């Protein structure tokens, strides 16, 4: 199983029926492919859609129906659409159960940086700051390291997305949470050791009383 699939499958296990969930671009989008059987969630696209379905087959796309990246998407039966003010009212107003986003860095306090690298890449924050500030549960989906360098760092050197700490970081190696405001190793992926995770992490990691193996 490749890293994105491990991450997406593990996050999909957090889904419960009736949740309103927003998935970011990249690995987070893959979570929709692994929704457990019997679980039915509402997926939101922040450009104004609840009930986002899979990418349409070639030739079946509608230019009036797009996802937050501007690509073609489908709407499931029971879907609804709305304007951007309503979309962010849902996000900021405590109606969004969960958001899954990518990250450049997450620090020891659980704070996330995911929207710019000064001088290099300035795409803009889009909806990320509102999503992290407003969602009831924030999950980061990311590879544990980038070019061999840890992404879970002592302190973010990149501009923060929000001061609100994330709830869970899921990588291909581990699940890290922030109970009591400290980075804590909760689960490790099959075939990965605790020592390997610590080696690949810059932030000091507390260890949960019982570190479980990730269920995929």
């Amino acid at each position, binding site marked *: 199983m490749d890293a994105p699939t491990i991450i997406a499958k593990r996050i999909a296990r957090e889904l419960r029926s009736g949740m309103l969930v927003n998935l970011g671009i990249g690995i987070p989008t893959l979570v929709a492919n692994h929704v457990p059987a019997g679980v039915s969630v509402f997926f939101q696209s922040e*450009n104004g859609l609840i009930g986002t379905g899979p990418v349409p087959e070639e030739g079946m796309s509608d230019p*009036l129906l797009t996802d937050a990246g501007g690509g073609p998407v489908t709407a499931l039966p029971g879907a609804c659409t709305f*304007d951007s*003010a309503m979309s*962010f009212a849902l996000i900021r107003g405590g109606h969004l159960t969960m958001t899954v986003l990518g990250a450049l860095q997450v620090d020891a306090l659980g704070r996330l940086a995911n929207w710019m690298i000064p001088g290099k890449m300035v*795409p803009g924050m*889009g909806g990320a700051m509102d999503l992290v*500030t407003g969602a009831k549960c924030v999950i980061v989906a990311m590879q544990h390291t980038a070019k061999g360098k840890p992404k879970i760092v002592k302190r973010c050197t990149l501009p923060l997305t929000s001061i609100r700490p994330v709830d869970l970081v899921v990588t291909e190696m581990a699940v890290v949470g922030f109970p009591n405001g400290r980075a804590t190793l909760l689960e490790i992926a099959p075939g990965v050791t605790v020592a390997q995770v610590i080696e690949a992490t810059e932030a000091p990691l507390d260890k949960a009383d019982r570190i479980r193996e990730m269920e995929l």
Partner: protein
Amino acid sequence: MIPNGASLMIGGFMGAGSPERVIDELVRQRKRDLVVIANDTATPAKGIGKLVAAGLVGKAIASHIGLNPDTQKKMISGDMIVDLVPQGTLIERIRAGGCGLGGILTPTGVGTVVEEGKRKIEVDGKSYLLETALHADFALVHAFLADYLGNLSYALTARNFNPVIAMAGDTVIVTADHIVPMGVIAPDHVVTPAAIVDYLIANR
């Protein structure tokens, strides 16, 4: 009608639901130094991206420019000023502008670079940023249906910023996919009332 240097709110989300015909005409007439307020600058060949590619935008207020390398290049070289605003804050600032409010209080951006230069206000022990209202000389709206009077309804995700900017421009110019007789859009399905629409243009 639109002069050089005008401020324009333009509907669309990554090009979906943008008033392409008005944008094409702005490019043809080479209207310069435009101030564009919109969610994003689309991609170089689409929607607002065409204005950026033609070098007509002096300043953009947007939430995301990541899919338009033109905008990023022009921002870094200083050819264009780009003010990046969180998407939920941007749409609420526009909504406030169209609703007669001076601004909004939002928790988004507190403790980040977004709060620089802004007033922080505590309400019941929670910190918020005061984000001021946005107005524009023109709102360039794209609708799905417009009746002869100018009542508008929108389709799917092509709605996005459109009904909100329609409230916040001094002059409201609308393109529509279909212009239909009055009564075709039921009163309950009208999203933008004709009374605030100034000009209506068939999209093709």
